């Protein structure tokens, strides 16, 4: 209970201090400090709120873009052919120049014919010869993958045979041009025992084309282009990897991933397995560098047109089944987009070196009774330094001060031709791992 004296004292202060409004005049400096506090607050939540969302979108884009943009290249080639056709129609001078190039190609091919029993010499034949050959291979691929193109074939044959309808409907041009080579090759399929023969067979086509400058311009110009593009689809053996981060940490990771040659679609893919050990070092609050060793099996099945070898098959196999074992040594940098003491989200990139531990290729033929080479095992170990681009996004969840779990969608894109088959083998997948934080006490 308050005594009278206490109550009096309390009243003096409560009443005397009750209306302070007029005693503290407003000061602009105080508002400036207030505004600075508000500005600081405003920026912070924007980052915290949006970064995880943006990082999630980035991770999805990584996978989707990788999947979508690396579709089979053939439709793009057809588009390129169509573009060339259009261009050539509007430029007669260019057509004439190309006709000249065709003459050169005839001479080169004729020369190649003279040495048709020597496969090594075939490899040395002129670029035009190779390009024409590549067109043939591209045609095989088209036959296998596109019924639509096959449907157009009769019309093309007609055009080619008649050789009178110069530049006709541009829309049909692109498949037409491909079919041009296809038909010629098909016609001569019976005696197409070797590359040189096939090349020789292509000559009449070139002649036909030359007879009609406009059409020829299209065909001749298209053929080299096709050859180049298809060649870029070369087959390679390879595998995948990924990286991690904390201060100083060791990570064990594994994944089941998808391998594809030239794309992840069109049936030319296979499922592989990866297991690896990585060491990572946080070089700053945001950046982490990691490296290690990842063992990966990379089985895949692809069309023979994606397989490139100096060995000349009497009859080209239909497809190639590859079994590759790779030791992947990555060197990656990760950037932390968001992190608190429990969760971290980062994106990263880097390069991988591949050591091919084992390479085996099995060849499948259209005729099951054909007695051609059935398999090829590479006898030696090949090394490819920094030949693969790594892209990854990583989510890490800390279990305690020592251990974290992580999930990492990744994409590996080949930068160079790798393996005996020289295939452009890319890999995507989701790696799961456990990270042991070596300096756990300082780990956030």
């Amino acid at each position, binding site marked *: 209970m308050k005594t009278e*004296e206490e109550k009096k*004292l309390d009243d*003096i202060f*409560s009443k005397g201090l009750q209306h*302070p409004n007029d005693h*503290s005049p407003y000061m602009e400096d*105080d508002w400036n400090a*207030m505004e600075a*506090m508000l500005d600081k607050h*405003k920026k912070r939540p924007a980052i915290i709120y949006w970064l995880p969302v943006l990082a999630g979108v980035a991770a999805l884009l990584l996978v989707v873009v990788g999947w979508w943009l690396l579709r089979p290249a053939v439709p793009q080639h057809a588009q390129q052919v169509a573009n060339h056709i259009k261009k050539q129609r509007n430029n007669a001078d260019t057509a004439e120049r190309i006709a000249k190039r065709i003459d050169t190609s005839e001479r080169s091919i004729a020369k190649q014919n003279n040495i048709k029993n020597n496969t090594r010499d075939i490899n040395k034949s002129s670029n035009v010869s190779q390009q024409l050959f590549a067109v043939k291979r591209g045609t095989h691929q088209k036959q296998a993958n596109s019924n639509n193109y096959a449907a157009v074939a009769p019309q093309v044959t007609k055009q080619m045979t008649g050789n009178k309808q110069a530049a006709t409907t541009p829309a049909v041009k692109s498949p037409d041009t491909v079919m041009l080579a296809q038909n010629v090759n098909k016609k001569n399929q019976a005696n197409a025992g070797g590359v040189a023969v096939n090349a020789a067979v292509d000559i009449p086509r070139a002649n036909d084309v030359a007879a009609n400058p406009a059409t020829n311009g299209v065909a001749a110009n298209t053929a080299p282009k096709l050859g180049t593009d298809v060649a870029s689809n070369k087959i390679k053996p390879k595998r995948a990897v990924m990286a991690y981060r904390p201060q100083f940490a060791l990570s064990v990771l594994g994944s089941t991933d998808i391998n594809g040659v030239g794309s992840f679609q069109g049936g030319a893919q296979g499922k592989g397995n990866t297991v690896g050990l990585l060491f990572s070092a946080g070089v700053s609050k945001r950046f982490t560098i990691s490296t290690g060793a990842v063992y990966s099996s990379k089985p895949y099945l692809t069309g023979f047109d994606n397989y490139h070898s100096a060995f000349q098959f009497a009859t080209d196999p239909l497809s190639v089944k590859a079994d590759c074992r790779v030791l992947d040594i990555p060197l990656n940098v990760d950037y932390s987009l968001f992190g608190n003491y429990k969760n971290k989200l980062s994106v990263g990139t880097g390069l991988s070196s591949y050591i091919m531990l084992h390479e085996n290729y099995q060849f499948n033929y259209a005729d099951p009774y054909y007695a051609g080479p059935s398999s090829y095992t590479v006898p030696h170990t090949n090394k490819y330094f920094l030949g693969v681009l790594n892209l990854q996004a990583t989510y890490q969840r800390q279990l305690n001060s020592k251990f974290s779990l992580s999930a990492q969608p990744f994409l590996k894109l080949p930068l160079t031709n790798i393996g005996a088959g020289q295939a452009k083998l890319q890999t995507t997948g989701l790696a799961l791992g456990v990270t042991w934080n070596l300096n756990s006490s300082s780990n956030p």
Partner: protein
Amino acid sequence: MIEEDLHHLISGCVKQDRKAQKMLYKAFYGFSMGICLRYTGNRDEAAEVMNQGFFKVFTRIDSFDREKPFKAWLGKIMVNTSIDFYRANLKMAYTDDLEKAEHVSDGILADRNLRYDDLLAMVQKLPNAYRTVFNLFAIEGYSHEEIADMLHINTGTSKSNLHKARQKLKQMIYDADEQSNNRNYNSGMDYNHIVAFNGMDIKTIFFNNGRG
């Protein structure tokens, strides 16, 4: 400020409109500063606490129930922020020896009418622990149980701190009276205090060579 204007300002603050925030800040600056000054030792500390309080207001204003008085809500936030500040600075609080204050006699508080600035200065001179309890009990009207809960102390400490705070304040009022009367004496307006000196006081001064 009329109610309609206030609601308009609050709506602006909900949308994080900086102009509305500044107007609200200015409108309640004096009120908020008055509260914070009572809980802190000086103006700088008070301004810091007040801004932290307004920061809470601006970031939580969408949780304010407009059916209730805004000023009461704001005042409570300022008090709570002041308590947070007190807790954060507990190490600076000290326990003062109140022996001298305990000898302050009753009866000196009759009909005092001290100025705001003087009263504020007295409260600010109190040690943090006493000041906080005195504010919460004597001015805000909380019970010792509530205060104990808010400050994470027991009720005995709360009562003790309040008692010591009151004794201190009484002493300050007494001292202020003394100074005031001395000024009056020196100007020749009042001589009564001469009588207040007794023989013992004079003797003490004498035997100690004037050191008292």
